């Protein structure tokens, strides 16, 4: 026993010594690559891109002197259809221009405040080691320019933002973006790279209220945003602006969260992240469903797309996705792979044999002989059904959600064809439709409602919000089932 321990100790001592020698060796090597000591070679102007694009990878290039020109613009933009907002921007977009550097680069930062702007601004880059992350040196009045420089020391994905009083308001109006510091030799190459950044917005009017909406300080302090969006507006990554990839490609997303308040539960519906640089740093987590991105933080995620289809980017704090705008799309084209995803193979009826549930089929037959109801009765019952089944997407006043769920109120699509409306509830609806001049491309599942229930809810919908008062009967529904 004793001797065994001795031998073990001896062996482990040798092992220790050996690994110590190795460690020292690698230590020496890393000393020469201490980021602060990297000597830059050459000079170039930094490429800046607006979202969702990113500049080309640094690859194998040496550390360089990077000249970077960033212009601050206060400008009116579109939050969603019919809703305007005055954004304050770095480089004319929300989020601001994407900056791509490598460890050891020396950045000469020219921050320019457009003469027509009303306010002074500055920039705090989380990638900067120094007072205020640059903010102390960069307060710039309208019509002026400030120059400061810094050396990037730590690899990772970092947020930058304005830090002028009132800081919260400057961020809430869109003054944030991402700066990437690649390690020596660059990140592993991938097929597609995109830039996505979440932000919360606080407007005087509720979500969807038309016109130029002013910033609402009270809502911002209470942290109750009307909009939570990717890339500065509702629909920045949907309705023709989808991110794209082909089956078999690897997609990397540089995801940031500008806040000012909310933390993002970033998730892509139908995908699993192969790799996540947690919090944008060096640690890599694998096989992640949802990654948490703090306000003022970021993450690098990548995944290989194996099947075609539309994958939905969401903040999985899910009401933000479907009710406040935090929804984007990645369209993947290519050949289906039935081994990975089969699609629906079979549709069948499920009739469990438990005593309590067995009632269901009985109910169904009973329902087919629907009682005669007055229109007023139908409306009353239909309203209740609407409140539990339809309201979540089509909203309380049938107004829908611009860009995502079509309106039922004064809807030309609805009023022109009641048979189509019945079929939509019975069988669901997929693909592009045109409602009141706007395109929608989404999925409505078939609803599990009886003929009577469908007749009631449709009669309620047709009798409300300026629609044409069509009365739908259970017989009409039955004929189309």
């Amino acid at each position, binding site marked *: 026993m004793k001797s065994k321990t001795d031998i073990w100790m001896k062996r482990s001592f040798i092992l220790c010594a050996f690994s110590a020698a190795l460690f020292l060796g690698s230590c020496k090597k890393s000393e020469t690559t201490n980021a602060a000591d990297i000597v830059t070679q050459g000079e170039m102007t930094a490429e800046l891109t607006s979202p969702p694009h990113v500049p080309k990878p640094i690859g194998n290039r040496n550390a360089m002197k990077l000249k970077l020109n960033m212009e601050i613009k206060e400008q009116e933009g579109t939050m969603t259809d019919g809703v305007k907002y*005055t954004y304050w921007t770095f480089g004319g977009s929300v989020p601001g221009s994407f900056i791509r550097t490598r460890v050891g680069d020396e950045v000469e930062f020219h921050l320019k405040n457009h003469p027509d*702007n009303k306010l*002074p601004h500055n920039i705090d880059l989380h990638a900067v080691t120094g007072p*205020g992350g640059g903010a102390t040196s960069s*307060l*710039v009045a309208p*019509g*002026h320019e400030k120059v400061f420089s810094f050396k990037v020391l730590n690899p990772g994905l970092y947020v930058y933002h304005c830090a002028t*009083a009132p800081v919260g308001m400057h961020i809430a109006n869109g003054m944030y973006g991402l700066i990437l510091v690649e390690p020596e030799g660059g990140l592993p190459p991938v097929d597609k790279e995109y830039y996505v950044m979440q932000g919360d917005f606080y407007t005087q009017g509720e979500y969807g209220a038309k016109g130029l909406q*002013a910033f609402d300080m009270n809502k911002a302090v209470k942290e109750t945003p009307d909009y939570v969006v990717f890339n500065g507006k509702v629909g920045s990554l949907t309705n023709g602006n989808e991110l794209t990839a082909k089956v078999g490609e690897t997609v990397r997303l540089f995801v940031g969260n500008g806040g000012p308040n909310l933390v993002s539960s970033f998730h892509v519906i139908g995908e699993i992240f192969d790799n996540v640089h947690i919090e944008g740093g060096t640690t890599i987590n694998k096989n992640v469903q949802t990654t948490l991105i703090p306000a003022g933080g970021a993450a690098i995620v990548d995944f290989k797309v194996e099947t075609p289809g539309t994958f939905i980017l969401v903040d999985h704090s899910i009401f933000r996705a479907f009710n406040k705008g935090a929804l984007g799309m990645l369209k993947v084209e290519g050949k289906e792979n039935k081994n990975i995803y089969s699609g629906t193979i079979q549709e069948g009826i499920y009739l469990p044999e438990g005593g309590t549930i067995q009632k269901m089929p009985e109910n169904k037959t009973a329902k087919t002989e629907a009682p005669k109801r007055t229109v007023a009765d139908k409306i009353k019952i239909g309203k209740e059904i609407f409140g539990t089944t339809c309201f979540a997407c089509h909203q309380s006043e049938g107004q829908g959600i611009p860009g995502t769920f079509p309106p039922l109120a004064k809807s030309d699509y609805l009023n022109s064809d009641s048979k189509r409306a019945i079929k939509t509830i019975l069988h669901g609806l997929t693909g592009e439709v045109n409602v009141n001049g706007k395109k929608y491309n989404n999925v409505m599942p078939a609803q599990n409602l009886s003929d009577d229930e469908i007749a009631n809810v449709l009669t309620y919908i047709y009798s409300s919000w300026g629609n044409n008062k069509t009365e739908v009967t259970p017989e009409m529904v039955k004929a189309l089932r």
Partner: protein
Amino acid sequence: MLNGLSNAQKNGMVPIKEGSFVPLYGATSQKPVFVKSFYMDVYPVTNAEFLHFIQKNSTYRKSKIKGIFADKSYLYYWKNDFDFEPANPNAPVTGVSWFAAKKYCECVGKRLPTMDEWEYVAMADEKKRDARTRKEFNEYILSWYEKSRTYENQIGKTFKNYWGVYDMHGLVWEWTSDFNSIFLSGESRKDKSSDKNLFCGGASVNATDLMDYAAFMRYAFRGSLKAQYSTRNLGFRCAGNTFPKP
């Protein structure tokens, strides 16, 4: 001498009665500041009025002014020394350095208002001397910060306040004589540190009213300025200890 000036400035000043108030950046002590009675211009100085001044003071023409008194953007929207078209003659003159604004006021027998005087007048709405706690008042000011190109508007189109003064909010920023006496380091989050408090007069967290974001913006704006700077959203008006002799 004043005859050549427009109507706006002819009967240009109103008396402001003395009083005290706690400014946003009320120093560490949060003591009220006493403002002595003075006179304030009803309107900011206009393009037409400034042209008149320039005609008489050639050293302040954009082609002649010395670099230490004004940077390159001095009157940059003027085509030449005497032509501000297509800007409106009754729109406020902007793109003027502190030196030029100060000189203008001296030439008409006045001076620039101090920051305390300016803030004292600016805290009044139509009816009250101090409306800073009124929600709608702050919202009005904040909404102006988000409207672009208001410098193109004519003077006197915003509201007339308690003192009879127009355009304190909603038109352009304005120079004050001691615009840089309150020090914002440029890193507004840091300005709360105690060492700065000793000589810089307070900071964001010390502000008497955190919700008075409107005022924060003014102090931040002033903090970004130097006396030779000029910007398209920055004009001025004059004040005086006595009513100027006609």
